[in-house]
């Protein structure tokens, strides 16, 4: 038993040291990387890591929302990837409030009359026959 331990201990130490090496090496490699243009543009340089995590979460959130809105799963990845970080955050935070260009109006009669008048006054542009 004692012999086994004597044999195992150096092995374990070696394994642990080797295992922790990449972690020790990480700051070194990060230091030799260039600063990316987007990182320099984001003023909050010191909170880069936290911002990065937030952006990853925002993208995940947008992915879920797009699926819920009926976007096909094959398309979702490409659509999320094309968004900038700021756009992904905006989508994650307020997709339901963003105007969706669609150009169809509700058919309420009162609304119809009001919009008809504003159309004639040149304020709105709903009914082509007013021109």
């Amino acid at each position, binding site marked *: 038993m004692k012999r086994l331990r004597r044999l195992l201990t150096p092995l374990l130490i070696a394994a642990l040291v080797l295992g922790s090496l990449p972690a020790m090496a990480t700051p070194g490699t990060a230091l030799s990387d*260039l600063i990316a243009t987007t990182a320099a543009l984001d*003023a909050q340089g010191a909170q880069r890591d936290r911002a990065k995590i937030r952006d990853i979460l925002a993208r995940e959130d947008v992915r879920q929302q797009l699926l819920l809105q009926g976007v096909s799963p094959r398309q979702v990845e490409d659509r999320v990837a094309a968004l900038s970080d700021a756009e992904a955050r905006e989508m994650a935070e307020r997709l339901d409030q963003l105007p969706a260009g669609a*150009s169809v109006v509700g058919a309420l009669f009162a609304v119809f009359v009001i919009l008809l008048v504003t159309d004639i006054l040149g304020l709105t542009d709903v009914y082509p026959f007013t021109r």
Partner: protein
Amino acid sequence: MTGAFRPSRRKNARIAGVPVLVACLFLLAGCASAPHLAPATRQALPERVQLDDVPFHGQRDYQCGPASLAMALQAAGRDVSVDTLIPQVFLPGREGSVQPEMLATVRRHGLVAYRLPGRFTALLTELAAGHPVVVLQNLALPAWPLWHYAVAIGYDLSGETLTLHTGMTPEREVAFGRFDATWARGDRWAFVALPPGELPAATLAGALRAIADFEAVQGSRAALPAWRALTDRQPEWAMALFGLGNARHATGDIAGARVAFRRATEADPELAPAWLNLGQLARQAGDLADARRAFSRAAAIPGPWQDRARDAREALDTEIDA
């Protein structure tokens, strides 16, 4: 008795309401006057512009987003159909397309999406430069919004009309006043989609971010012409030179990257990231004295990069000692 009074009282209220309604409408009508153009801007712009090479695509129900995008992308030389764009930008749950995804889809097709400032002159300036402009309008009123994307393709200053490819109508002429009212209700949101070597004519205010976002999706090789164009137009713009340096480095032009970072530090000696990247490249090339000088400059600038600069200098010092 009371029953006999009620209708007449209601009638009085209705009569009283009419002047109020009229007053409200006149107030609103005040907002619909044609946007004011300064005489100087008016003189700088051509009298009439019509971009005849912008193709028209009629929208199918709800799909003015994909249709407008197809027009703008094709005008910039990208061969992409409305049918390709619908699954890329249309949101079935919202029965429409949202602004961030409009810009993102432009990027996916290899063009840079530049947002325009919400000024009528910016819109006209882009048209005069030959760039069709995608606009977001609220065609109805804030209470019952009718969001709509269209493509502006021309204007006539003396006739005070804007020409739009919109909905099912190609080349529709809309009075400046009416257009500006509907555009203002969409927060005067507009963008141009341009190939990487071309820049918007109206302003370069958002260009840095637009190109950096494009580069994140399409890569540095595709973005390089955009950085080059921006630094040609703004040779003293340190952040543009910084972006050029990174794009050159990513495409293997190390010497060119060093030149760009050097120029960035000359344009703005307080731009710590430029000193850091300059030092890093000097260090990799073996010019340790140059590297140390650059890191020291970066370490002397207070701000988010100071710690990193000190670490880099320290690491370099141990390297020199060893």
